[in-house]
């Protein structure tokens, strides 16, 4: 980038932007690394890079990946009526029912929210943590864009959880028909929460490693 030469970072200038309130604080004299720096306006801890960001992201990401398996294999709900008995439904099965029922658009929406978004999120977070760990300078602008995207779309995966809760609440005709939530729903809800926590733990500034250790005396 041609403009990169004129660009200076907070770490170089001992400037801290508060992630909560936006106040920019300038550290007037060097202090020990371990000294906590609460934002004078809102007390949010200030860092050039959030501590243990990658470890935390890894932990949530691994947990999410493991739970993603039961989330897709176990049924998320069961329907029952006197004529057909009990039927179990997985996430993929539900999408198939919508598709064969002729609701192409809804099948696509649920597919994107329940299958595509969680898989993309897990894959994208893997790319982000691995490249950040290696202090890679590969496609930094695109990786920054990728981070913003997964952070923005993450909560849409909760769609199927809400649908099942509403069906459980609404379809209550006793022996004529009913819907029950099943354990897959619990796993799926946990995956959504864990991937959101993983994205929230990742510090996007790690996409932009400093040349050397942050300078303490600019």
């Amino acid at each position: 980038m041609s403009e990169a030469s004129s660009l200076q970072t907070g770490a170089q200038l001992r400037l801290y932007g508060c992630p909560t309130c936006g106040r920019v604080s300038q550290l007037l004299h060097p202090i020990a690394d371990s000294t906590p720096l609460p934002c004078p306006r809102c007390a949010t801890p200030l860092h050039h890079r959030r501590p243990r960001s990658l470890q935390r992201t890894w932990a949530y990401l691994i947990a999410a990946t493991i739970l993603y398996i039961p989330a897709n294999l176990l049924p998320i709900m069961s329907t029952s009526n006197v004529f057909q008995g009990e039927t179990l439904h997985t996430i993929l099965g539900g999408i198939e029912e919508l598709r064969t029922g002729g609701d192409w658009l809804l099948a696509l929406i649920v597919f994107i929210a329940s299958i595509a978004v969680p898989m993309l999120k897990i894959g994208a977070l893997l790319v982000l943590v691995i490249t950040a760990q290696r202090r890679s300078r590969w496609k930094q602008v695109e990786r920054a864009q990728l981070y913003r995207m997964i952070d923005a779309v993450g909560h849409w995966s909760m769609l199927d959880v809400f649908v099942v809760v509403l069906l459980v609440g609404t379809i209550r005709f006793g022996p004529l028909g009913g819907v029950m939530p099943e354990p897959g729903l619990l796993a799926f809800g946990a995956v959504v929460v864990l991937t959101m926590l993983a994205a929230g733990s990742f510090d996007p500034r790690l996409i932009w490693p400093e040349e050397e250790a942050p300078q303490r005396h600019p």
Partner: protein
Amino acid sequence: MTDPVPSAHAHAPFAPAAARATVTAAALAARHDLVVCNECDAVHERITLARGTVARCRRCNALLGRGHVIGTEKLLAFAIASLLLIIIGNSAPIVTLDFQGVVSQATLPQAIEATWNAGQPFVAVLTAATALVFPLVFTILRLYLLGSLVRGIVPRGFVPAMHMLAFVTRWGMAEVFMLGTLVAVVRCASLTSATPGIGLFAYGAVTLLITAITAAGTHNLWKRSSEIGGNA
């Protein structure tokens, strides 16, 4: 970056509220002339943004600020409307089913209760929090904060309230729930006759209002409180 910073703001006297300044706080001088990108740490000069324009980071393209289109008083009106609609959205049925004369309908709290009773307390709590409690707390906090600030008062517990607002903004999912109601209605309609209820429409409106309020960000709240209270 977001708003013009009046020169008086930088020299505002310290109010007693800011007296918790410690040794480290004194070592952290405010630089109201600068903006540091939250997503890549690049430093920018703060500029005044015209209405409807946005500023992006030169290095990583992250959104740094917006020139606001909606004023504070209008945001307060949105929050009042949002509170009323959340109350309606939670007391009116979302969908009504008619199965050969047997009518079944449910509000959001009833659906949550049914899920709890069906042996999925975690899912029930998750839904209650993200679809009901967080959007409600979001609205109440906005009302509390904006209601005081427009009258020139920094409300009690301003800083903790702002931290809580950031949390419920991130974890509130009214818009996802709204789409979920539509999918649920269509799936019910494939079984039996289904009629969308008032609750669905109320939640649709809540979604729009919360989105509009969220888009305005929190910078103006911090700025107003600094101007009134003179803290940091």
